């Protein structure tokens, strides 16, 4: 299978690889996929609670080169965006940017799922932490 230059670049020099403290209230973690399916992505975002801007993003991916590239690209794209803006990212944009062939579209879907899962996790934490924040005031 031939890979696009962009996939090769992300595979060889993945951006934002790493992990953040998943227990931090500012961090949202998305873990999607399954080992049996050959793809697991962990995508984490760190959100500024005042501005809702994603200030940092990290990923780790078990999967093919296209899956690694999709998640690496996703971390680049979400950084600097508000959570609502990040939710607008569509898998088709990832497909286009990385020139993914049809058999690799599921990798981009997984990356979109990972972004949503991370944001969902973060939002859930805000619901839990807000009342305590109020109580503390």
């Amino acid at each position, binding site marked *: 299978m031939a890979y696009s230059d962009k996939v090769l670049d992300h595979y060889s*020099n993945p951006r934002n*690889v790493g992990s953040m403290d998943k227990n931090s209230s500012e961090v949202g973690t998305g873990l999607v996929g399954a080992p049996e*399916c050959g793809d697991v992505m962990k995508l984490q975002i760190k959100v500024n609670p005042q501005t809702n801007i994603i200030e940092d993003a990290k990923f780790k991916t078990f999967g093919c080169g296209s899956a690694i590239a999709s998640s690496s690209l996703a971390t680049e794209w979400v950084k600097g965006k508000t959570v609502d803006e990040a939710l607008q990212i569509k898998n088709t944009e990832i497909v286009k940017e990385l020139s993914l062939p049809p058999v690799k579209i599921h990798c981009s879907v997984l990356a979109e799922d990972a972004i949503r899962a991370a944001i969902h996790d973060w939002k859930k934490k805000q619901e839990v932490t807000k009342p305590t924040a109020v109580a503390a005031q």
Partner: protein
Amino acid sequence: MSTDVKTIPQAEHVAPEGVKLPVYMDNHATTPMDPRVLEEMLPFFMEKFGNAASRNHSFGWAGEEGVETARERVAKLVGATTKEIIFTSGATESDNLAIKGVAEMYREKGNHIITAVTEHKAVLDTCKRLEKYGYRVTYLPVQKDGLVDLDELKRAMDDKTILVTIMWANNEIGVLQPVAEIGKLCRERGIIFHTDATQAVGKIPVDVNKNNIDVMSISAHKMYGPKGVGALYVRRKNPRVQISAIIDGGGHERGMRSGTLNVPGIVGLGKACAIASEEMAKESCKLAGLRNRLRDKIMGQLDEVYINGTMEHRLPGNLNISFAYVEGESLLMGINDIAVSSGSACTSATLEPSYVLKALGTGDDLAHSSIRFGLGRFNTEAEVDYVADRVVETVSRLRELSPLYEMAKEGVDLKSVKWAAE
């Protein structure tokens, strides 16, 4: 707190002395042709172009002579007689001819065929087609080591069983089935035994009499011969096996396979067999040494690495390893200057991981993480060392990237995680 992982950018790799990149280590897919084979074939393209079936002029005689010399060489390598060797276009055709040919010829005797789940698709899909025509097929499971259970085979046999088809050496994991014992069980019950010996002939000693084989598929391009040519051994006595043709025409090859013979290809197959007869014993020692060196170097430097299939009954040049927490295709991308195969779904058209590995009870996750190394005649120790280093480096890099490796190191039992289905 965030932990950054400094992944080392993939560097352009410089080949060490004595190693030419890319390294070819996929000799179960195909082998490069031995120059001695090519040399033998060349006159049969131009000078000796005659049709081996032309009986009344010297052009035909020259072609026929080339074919008959080849037939002797093939027969000698497997302990057969020349009349028992039928030339075909390759092992897929040989498998089709053997299975369909026996099924049709012995239809009145019975309609039951036994095979194993780890067979090559040329066998499995042929059996599946016969099921549509009213044949009954038993697909035997294999044990964890990749071998069929002889008791299970015995239990599957009944008075309607006409054929058992079980491969000699597996193309993915290289394990060697107990063909002599299988053949004995078949012989005792008057059942015909076919074996797809594509990966075995020329690599390990193959003797159709000692191993109780009735019908056997052979391929040229897996043993340093040309592509597009193979043979089928069909036993002539004790017992005499008859097969119906699947290609009709001019009645070539004793009526079993019509079509003008591929003379240069057949000559190449013959030469490949002659070389194997001479050099196989020495070569298999060398290959087993290189293979074990590769295994030891990889396993000495990486944890959670698993060998698929028994090491005890195995082709000398085969190594099939799963690297836990690393997906096969991304591993292949990282070692793109090395030609090997992966059992990962991502390398196949179906998105299903290797059915052979799954049949051993290997989990889908480990099946996705597998690499098949196929060492051959032209691999060197320097290449093995280079490949081992590159594999270790790439697996280490990808594990740094792997959330599964991180979770496992944190003590998370990955089996207990509720994974969201895709």
